[in-house]
């Protein structure tokens, strides 16, 4: 089975075949991978509209968006002032309160501790904001991390005020 012929053509046909085969295998694998991504019915639920007309100052409600809790807090004047009076160099993850809200009265954020994904308790902790019971992260009235293992502030989802009483999240 010795093959002493010039190798060019042989190599070309072998390489072309192997390359074409590899492309096909790759194309066949993609559907098998992509089927685990969110499907069309899940994506359709990607935005939620919330009626906030019944929330009184100081109260907060929790709504579900993409299977995750979203805190919608109507903050009192004091709480807003408290959040705005903190100087940025005291913060582990410096962010101005003004950048975290669209309307100072309403704080809308993902109610998930950025440490390992637990849901923090409201009106608890050393900074009167939120406290995560899992590993003791303290958040202030703007949802910023102040103390504990969490690396960053609680996340702000995309949202818009459709009118005075409705927020659309997502």
């Amino acid at each position, binding site marked *: 089975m010795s093959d002493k012929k010039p190798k060019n053509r042989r190599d070309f046909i072998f390489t072309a075949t192997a390359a074409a085969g590899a492309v096909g295998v790759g194309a066949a694998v993609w559907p098998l991978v992509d089927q685990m991504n969110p*499907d069309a019915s899940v994506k359709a639920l990607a935005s939620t509209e919330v009626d906030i007309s019944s929330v009184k100052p100081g109260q907060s409600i929790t709504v579900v968006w993409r299977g995750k809790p979203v805190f919608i807090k109507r903050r009192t004047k004091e709480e807003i002032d408290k959040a705005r009076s903190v100087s940025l160099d005291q913060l582990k993850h410096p962010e101005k309160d003004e950048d975290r809200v669209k309307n100072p009265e309403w704080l809308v954020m993902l109610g998930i501790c950025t440490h390992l994904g637990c849901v923090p308790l409201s009106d608890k902790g050393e900074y009167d904001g939120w406290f995560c019971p899992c590993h003791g992260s303290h958040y202030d009235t703007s949802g910023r991390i102040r103390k504990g293992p969490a690396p960053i502030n609680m996340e702000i989802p995309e949202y818009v005020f459709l009118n005075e009483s409705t927020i659309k999240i997502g």
Partner: protein
Amino acid sequence: MSDNNYTPNSKIGKWFNDRLPLLTLANHLTDYPTPKNLNYWWTFGGILTFCLITQIITGLVLAMHYIADTKLAFASVEHIMRDVNYGWLIRYVHANGASMFFLAVYIHIFRSLFYGSYKSPREIIWILGIIIYLLMMAAAFMGYVLPWGQMSYWGATVITNLFSAIPFIGEGITTWLWGGYSVDNPTLTRFYALHYLIPFLILGLVVLHIWALHVPGNNNPAGIEIKKPSNDTVPFHPYIVVKDAFALLLFLIVFAFFVFYTPNILGHADNYIEANPLVTPAHIVPEWYLLPFYAILRSVPDKLMGVIAMFSAILILAALPWLDTSKVRSAIFRPLYKQFYWILVIDVLILGYVGAMPAEGLYLLIARIATAYYFIHFLIILPVLGLTEKTNPIPLSISEPVLAGSAMATKSLEKDKIENNLKSLG
């Protein structure tokens, strides 16, 4: 087999191989001496392996989205078809894949019948194959129940009721199979569990099937024993690998045509109607690959005897190595057997056709004749033929056909015959 002495080149390879001889196995598989005259009918073993893997992978994916609950099963299949990314593709590949699997397995079986591959020393390979085939039918049947359409439900009802034909304990067995007094949620969930399990049993048996094959080596179109390795053989890799790949691609073109252009033609429209225990569809027909056996079942007027006939039709194959008494393997050298072989092929196709037709009038008569012939072929024709048939001279090896049976080769007439035979070997 000579590969027992294989030593890897690299040090790490040697270290690993001494502890787990995977490299020896790989070397055995690549060097495995294969008869060089295998024709394209021999590529279906590789195609079947591909089918099994495809069914397992697509099935695993479908299981991530399917819900085995009578209230949700149908809707979850629609969810797969509509919303899951590429769900329609994966389900159609799985559903048509079952048909393709059976198509390939029937070709594989009939290749065996033609070239006498079931004969000594390959009986165990053959019997393992029959068990795989039985498990395939069980898996296909249970898989068909899962979408919980009308055919799913009524197919499950009819097939499980077959067991009620068994005297005394039959009723108990069906109730046990159902986990209730009719096909219902417990039946669906257990069928789902078993449908998931069986392919892995098949996979295990396939390993044994190939293992058993590698002991005597492949049969070949000439049906003669050959020296391995020799002039008559080529290493499995790359010769057989590339040939199998080519055949697989042609098979995939047919497969793709069904999946993309007529994905539902091999199924039944009624299975897109959600199961309704109060209404039986006007026409109950199993999937095409079970039709011959369905015809045998219906051709016998007695319930118990019908069931026995149907199962015997499959189990009789297991006795085939002993029913066929001929010393010559390949039909190429058995002029009479070759004709009976083709009659059997036609007989099975006829059974498949009448299995899809209503069991009445002429169809029933044809089904009865075809059923009778099926059993006559295996029980009477084969044993008698093996003892009485005058076979043609067999070549001594694949490479040196002209010397074959040199005593007879002097007669020019005989010689022509041999040459013709060898031509048909490809």
